[in-house]
């Protein structure tokens, strides 16, 4: 973990709500090894209502360019301000934080399910899996076509299935209704997205006896284990999502 100034290399609006921001260390620091599922804490400068940092997943790490990608959805003052940052400006991060998805040690069929901006960590996860010789499949859900982000990036690492609520892209409905879940049998499901979606995914996994990990987005004050604000009730008691999560095996959760 470290606190470091990054410089914004680019800030691209992917649609009206989501921005892809690429940052690189402002100095000559080389990025450390990072794992999919980990996140950063962004300092949002100087607004009274954005006193605390904002946790954002590591969307992708481009080792060659020494860049971290962040995929951010504007939902409040903090994310609005982050998305209004300009190329060349400084973004202070505490990183890398949290645990990560379990990287495959054995063969099997992996499905990575992301909903909304919860697709963010899945891209980096897909890349790491492909690198380790396993081709994952992705199932991404959104409200409509424009909410399925980074499609071509995902397709680079595995097959892509999609659902949209209005049917404008992929199958119509929620991710858990996608036909692939009926047709194929997976050994592992990794998921991140809105809680109702993850709970539905967890239910499916439980019913089908599939190993499943979910990445939680509990409210955080510090992000590195100091405040105990971000706890999730687990079979092991109240556990910090920022240090022992954000990724949990659903067997540990009361979902």
């Amino acid at each position, binding site marked *: *973990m*470290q*606190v470091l100034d990054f410089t914004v290399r680019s800030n691209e609006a992917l649609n009206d709500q989501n921005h892809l921001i690429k940052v690189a260390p402002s100095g000559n620091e080389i990025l450390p090894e990072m794992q999919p599922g980990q996140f950063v804490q962004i*300092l949002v400068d100087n607004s*009274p*209502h*954005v*006193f*605390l*940092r904002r946790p954002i997943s590591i969307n992708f790490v481009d080792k060659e360019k020494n860049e971290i990608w962040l995929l951010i959805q504007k939902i409040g003052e903090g994310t609005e301000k982050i998305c209004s940052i300009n190329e060349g400006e400084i973004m202070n991060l*505490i990183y890398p934080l949290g645990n990560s998805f379990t990287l495959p040690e054995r063969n099997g069929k992996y499905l990575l399910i992301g909903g909304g901006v919860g697709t963010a960590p899945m891209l980096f996860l897909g890349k790491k899996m492909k690198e380790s010789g396993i081709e994952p499949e992705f199932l991404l859900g959104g409200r409509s076509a424009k909410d399925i982000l980074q499609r071509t990036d995902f397709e680079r690492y595995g097959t892509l299935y999609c659902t949209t609520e209005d049917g404008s892209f992929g199958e119509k409905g929620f991710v858990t209704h996608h036909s692939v879940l009926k047709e194929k049998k997976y050994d592992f499901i990794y998921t991140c997205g809105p809680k109702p979606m993850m709970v539905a995914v967890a239910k499916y996994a439980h019913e089908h006896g599939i190993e499943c990990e979910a990445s939680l987005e*509990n*409210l955080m*004050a*510090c*992000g*590195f*284990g*100091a*405040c*105990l*604000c*971000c*706890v*999730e*009730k687990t079979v092991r*008691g*109240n556990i910090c999502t920022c240090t022992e999560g954000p990724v949990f095996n659903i067997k540990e959760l009361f979902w």
Partner: protein
Amino acid sequence: MAGLEVYIGDLRLKNPVMTASGTFGYGTEYADFIDLGRLGGVFVKGTTLAPRQGNDYPRMAETPSGMLNAVGLQNKGVDYFVEHLYPVIKDYDTHMIVNVSGSTVEDYVACAEKLADLDKMPAIELNISCPNVKEGGMAFGTSCQSAAQVTREVRKVFPKTLIVKLSPNVTDVTEIARGVENEGADAVSLVNTFLGMAIDVESRRPKLSTITGGLSGPCIKPIAIRMVWEVFHAVKIPIIGMGGICNWQDAIEFILAGATAVQVGTYNFIDPTASVKIVDGINDYLERYHIASVNDIVGKMIV
């Protein structure tokens, strides 16, 4: 280098900058960010006799220039601390001080007794002001009698430096400060969090699982400064000031108001290196004004 050394009772601090309980874990959480040896002291997480799971999620809400928390003293209990945590942290080159909480006087006493035996535990801070537990906690700190009583009983079993942490949720904080001074406290620390509340207007639900919680951060600083200044004129024992400290200016403000030392709390979450920056900033300030020692400006606001 200006003289940064200060004394809290018999306890010598290499500098007046410490970190506040509940915001700094056991110090280890910050070891990646700073050299803990540069701090005057570290107040570790509130510790109780028995393990506590704390309150349900959600436990925090952001507020203008501050935050509410309702952690509720989640900790593994004093025995676990003594066996598993103390051995890890005892050799840090700073004072590791436990913040002791309880629901009954007996709890406090039993907890303090166990800590008194630890070689490298030079002091404890009695948390009689936690707003986040149903039984006891803040209640001790808002009545002069019970504050005095718990101090008296713990004093009997704890011969080392005894710091009592005061609640700001009172009409007259000087009364409580004098009460615990009379019972032999070596120092008072203030302020703990203010009891506050926030509601999500869309769900119409409280933002905290416990409805109310403790308010901390820069928003409370003006009230905290005022209380430190009032207590400075009411007691003779040293004061450890806190409440919203973010930078050296804030720290100096507390010192001028009467604090011999300070604790940095919530701001550690935003800048985990803030505390050591504050040590440097205080030093620079003293040098800039050719002040030999930080002790020379304690309570020296010019009126």
